[in-house]
């Protein structure tokens, strides 16, 4: 079971992580814990599963792409 995990913007810099994979994660929150080696999760971090906004306790499955990023600032 491979989950693709991505980090963006300030979160990417802070964690020094961009693209990685994790095994055996059942939720987005577990994917964070495994990918970051249990780093503290800032309260404002957003999560997307397969390009859609999601929650940290949402279930993930093999092949899913989970992304973590700070509040957006485009426009």
């Amino acid at each position, binding site marked *: 079971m491979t989950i693709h995990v*991505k980090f*963006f*913007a*300030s979160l990417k*810099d802070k964690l020094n992580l961009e693209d990685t994979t994790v095994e055996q994660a059942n939720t987005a929150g577990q994917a964070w814990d495994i990918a970051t080696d249990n780093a503290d999760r800032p309260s404002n971090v957003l999560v*997307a599963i397969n*390009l859609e*906004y999601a929650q940290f306790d949402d279930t993930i499955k093999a092949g899913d*792409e989970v*992304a973590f*990023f*700070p*509040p*957006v*600032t*485009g*426009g």
Partner: protein
Amino acid sequence: MTAQIIKHIFDPWQAIAKHQEAANLSQKFGATATFVGTMRDFNDNADVSAMTLEHYPAMTAHYLEKLIEEAKIKWPLLDVLIIHRVGEITSSETIMLIACWSAHRRASLDACNWLIEELKHRAPFWKKETRPDGERWVEKNTDGL
């Protein structure tokens, strides 16, 4: 209905004219509402000479298309054009353009306003500013007032 993410400088007014002509909207629309976002040379009381716009490419493309589809359901729009820059941007350059065409003014005005607010609050873009004391990620958008 088009959403584009581009790395190069663009002229929003030329883009509107070109899109309008290509979409063959002549004589169909009675209203065009536009929003053009331009980079300021200041933010939060500090000088800003340039910025880098990062994005989540797959999700950004997906999200902008989704926004346009939602806008089409909410309002009777004839066409929508969204162009958003990524990469290096310097002050006075256009960051983004939203243009909405409709038969009557209310649909295009309301849709344009809704699209910019949705984009600013949900589309996965992030700004990193270049200031005299170094680079800084923008933590949140201004409230727009």
